[in-house]
């Protein structure tokens, strides 16, 4: 008799070319929060898909509450009381919360009509019981991403799941929403649920998990008591070598002004002013960071600087040359490099080969195409191979493989390699480490600092405060399209910045005046 709710022993799963799970063990105790830690591609999702019945394991056994079971489909898993919140929600956006929750198990009245009243009541009860604060009558399209996630959680609770699998639940949330999620997980635990948390964020594990199982490249590494092990140690277990969170920067050596923005106004796609009278400048050799919650004008600011949208008013100068009215191409040629926020949308052509992506911005230069307009694929290949080597981009097949087949971290490395190779005057970097694993994050941050040390001007926009704090020489805090203040590195604590990000500017203004005075 075991005292584990879930036991997965010796699970092995082979995909063509990859051993996704190699004799992996997972033992989860009744009523604990158990984290499953590993980098992207470590086999976390595969293991959970096997538990949830989406895949069959090639070998190994699964015991639920001590009994051997065969889980052949998600329906079997539901019957066993296992529920899963996927990273990408499965919600009908123009249905209400309740309609989404009952979808598939609708209760009917005697006449065979949909009985939503009863369902609504039950949803309300569950929401109250677990402190989810969800209104059963809201439409999905009207509520925030964080709320949508709670609806997914409610969906499982409604189906009487007592084992909840949360797949990277914080990936889509803002810092505040993450805090809320953490308290929801604690609440679920207090109410007697068993929770498996798939993540690669150590902070969250420290915050809520009791125990943690670490996977690396498909192999089981260890299961640990979270409170006895430091974040550094967990990171090392996950990556397989010591990880350095602190980044060494050379002393600040400012050069001439590269970018000068004055009274910039930009509208968003709905026609509202998203950027209002922003003025700032960036010098060679510094990283200028913009901290803020998503949706406060950062995206529009980047679009305006790179030429993706028109500006309403104000000027953008690069080395004293007015580029406000220039085309995207002219700006690229003038020396603006751009590592975009959404790398799949703006950064890469996923169906293009690595080589084609590597020259996406300079395919038409003398270097890569001849006078007749014929591309020199041989030279492009050599150039790409050089970048692959220099940036340690892990490719399976080589230059001709499609960019879409790379992992997120390697895709990002490819973009950075391309942009830096263009040796831009100004490098605009947005959310460079979103969704990446620890190893890639460490590498990319180090690269950015290296470029700064070499004397490049860098504009960094990130929703992760910790990233801004550890990389930037100057930090601007943006709220509702305006700067709440610009500060030097170390002038403010994380808390103070967070406070200003949330839009309370009083304190910020005060501070700002103080630095000028």
């Amino acid at each position: 008799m075991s005292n584990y709710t879930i036991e997965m022993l010796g699970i092995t799963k082979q995909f063509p070319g990859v051993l996704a799970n190699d004799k992996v063990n997972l033992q989860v105790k009744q009523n604990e929060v158990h984290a499953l830690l590993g980098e992207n591609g470590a086999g976390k999702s595969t293991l959970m898909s096997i538990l949830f019945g989406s895949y069959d394991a090639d070998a190994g056994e699964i015991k639920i509450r001590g009994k051997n079971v065969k889980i052949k489909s998600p329906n079997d898993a539901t019957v066993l009381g296992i529920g899963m919140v996927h990273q990408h929600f499965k919600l009908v956006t123009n249905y209400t919360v309740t309609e989404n929750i009952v979808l598939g198990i609708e209760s009917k009245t005697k006449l065979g009509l949909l009985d939503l009243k009863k369902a609504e009541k039950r949803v309300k009860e569950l929401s109250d019981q677990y402190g989810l604060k969800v209104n059963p009558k809201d439409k999905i399209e009207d509520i925030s991403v964080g709320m949508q996630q709670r609806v997914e959680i409610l969906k499982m609770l409604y189906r009487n799941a007592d084992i909840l699998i949360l797949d990277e639940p914080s990936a889509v949330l803002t810092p505040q929403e993450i805090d809320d999620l953490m308290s929801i997980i604690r609440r679920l635990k207090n109410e007697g649920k068993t929770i498996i948390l798939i993540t690669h964020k150590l902070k969250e594990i420290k915050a809520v998990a009791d125990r943690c199982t670490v996977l690396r490249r498909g192999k089981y590494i260890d299961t640990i008591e979270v409170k006895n092990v430091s974040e550094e140690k967990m990171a090392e277990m996950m990556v397989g070598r010591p990880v350095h969170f602190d980044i060494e920067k050379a002393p600040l050596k400012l050069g001439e002004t590269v970018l000068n923005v004055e009274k910039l106004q930009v509208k968003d796609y709905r026609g509202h002013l998203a950027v209002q009278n922003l003025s700032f400048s960036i010098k060679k050799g510094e990283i200028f960071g913009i901290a803020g919650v998503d949706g406060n004008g950062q995206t529009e600011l980047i679009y305006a600087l790179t030429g993706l949208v028109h500006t309403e008013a104000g000027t953008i100068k690069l080395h004293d040359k007015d580029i406000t009215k220039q085309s995207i191409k002219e700006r690229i040629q003038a020396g603006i490099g751009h590592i975009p926020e959404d790398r799949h949308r703006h950064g890469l052509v996923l169906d293009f080969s690595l080589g084609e992506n590597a020259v996406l911005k300079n395919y038409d230069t003398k270097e890569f195409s001849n006078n007749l307009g014929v591309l020199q694929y041989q030279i492009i290949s050599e150039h790409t191979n050089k970048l692959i080597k220099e940036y340690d981009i892990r490719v399976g097949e080589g230059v001709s493989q499609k960019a879409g087949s790379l992992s997120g971290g390697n895709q990002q490395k490819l973009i950075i390699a391309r942009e830096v190779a263009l040796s831009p005057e100004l490098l605009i970097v947005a959310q460079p480490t979103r969704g990446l694993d620890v190893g890639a994050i460490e590498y990319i941050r180090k690269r950015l600092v290296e470029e700064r040390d070499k004397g490049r001007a860098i504009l960094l926009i990130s929703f992760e405060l910790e990233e801004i704090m550890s990389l930037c020489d100057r930090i601007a805090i943006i709220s509702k399209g305006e700067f709440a203040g610009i500060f030097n590195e170390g002038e403010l604590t994380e808390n103070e910045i967070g406070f200003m990000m949330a839009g309370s500017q009083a304190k910020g203004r005060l501070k700002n005046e103080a630095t000028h005075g």
Partner: protein
Amino acid sequence: MDKTKKLKQRKSLGTFLQESDGAMSVLVVLIGFLFATLLILIIGRNPSGMYKAILQVLTGYNVDRNRFYVRYIGEWLAQSMPLILCGLSMGFAARVGLFNIGAEGQYIVGITVAQLIAIFFPQIPVAHWFFAILFAALAGAIWGGIVGWLKAKYEVSEVVATIMMNYIALYLSRIITLRIPGANTYRTPNFPQTALLTSSFLQKITNGSRLNLGIIFVVLSVLIYWFIIEKTRTGFELRATGFNKDAARASGIPVVKSIMLSMAIAGAFAGLAGGIVSLGAYKYGRVLAANDGYGFTGIAVALVGNNTAVGTALSGLLFGMLSTAQPLMESNRIPKEITFIIQGLVVIFIAIRVGFRMVVAYLAKKAPLKQEKTLNTKKTQEEMPTHE
């Protein structure tokens, strides 16, 4: 090169089908023929009649009479010419992410202009037909380019615009052609000899088929298509725009220009098809009563050919073969409708290709065959050293 070939052979059929569009197309065509064979059996006829007809089209050999009729090969090629060109038209736009339903209209514009030049241009040998088809292609380019311009500048759906342009082309063609002196309700006077694409040499070697000089332009078109798309800067811009418009734009690629250019080039292929049909297959100008349908069949041709130059040429030849085989099938007591059914089946199967792939992927996921597993581990082991 040899190495990769070997590796490919070792891959299981499943992975091969998943990775190669070409292999999937061949499979789909074979399934189409299989269904057709079953259908013929069900209606109580002998399927060999169909295959005999196909053999005769492909090689000229008639099994029953044990004789060669080279004319059929010529007819087959002549029949395939407009299909290949309209396939290229559809395919070229598709590579830029556009759905060109307008090949039919661009083709009609090509016919109309070629007919006008054939009748009114001075009768200079070679220059006469050459300018006729050149301007046919140009007219098609303008017809397609208008849609490209509307799409790029004003975001007018190219699907709606091309369908409407098809109607305009058809009725405009009737109005113009009817005004040619001597024209009646269905035809104009004969073209002068200098306007015709007929070649006594080609007719001689194919025993009097309709095969004509147009074939040179078809071959050139296939080569140009391949060269532009695969080799040039412009092709790079077009493909980038087709795959990911946003990334292309953010990288400074002129997306608006790409869209206009692609529709214009697509139109040029279809216009050329019109020119070749009107001066190659007919000796007089036609007052069109209805669509010839090559433009629409071109959609299917491009689909089966995966929008590649060579694939579209091959698939055009397949469709041309089917329509040339129709009369022969009739004489072998196979209803000619069978060929339409094959075409339909092939298109449907191509359309559910994604579904096929999902089935293959599902089978691989759920229960990887032992054989496949060992093959794959072997493969990765062998591949490792070569990539280091």
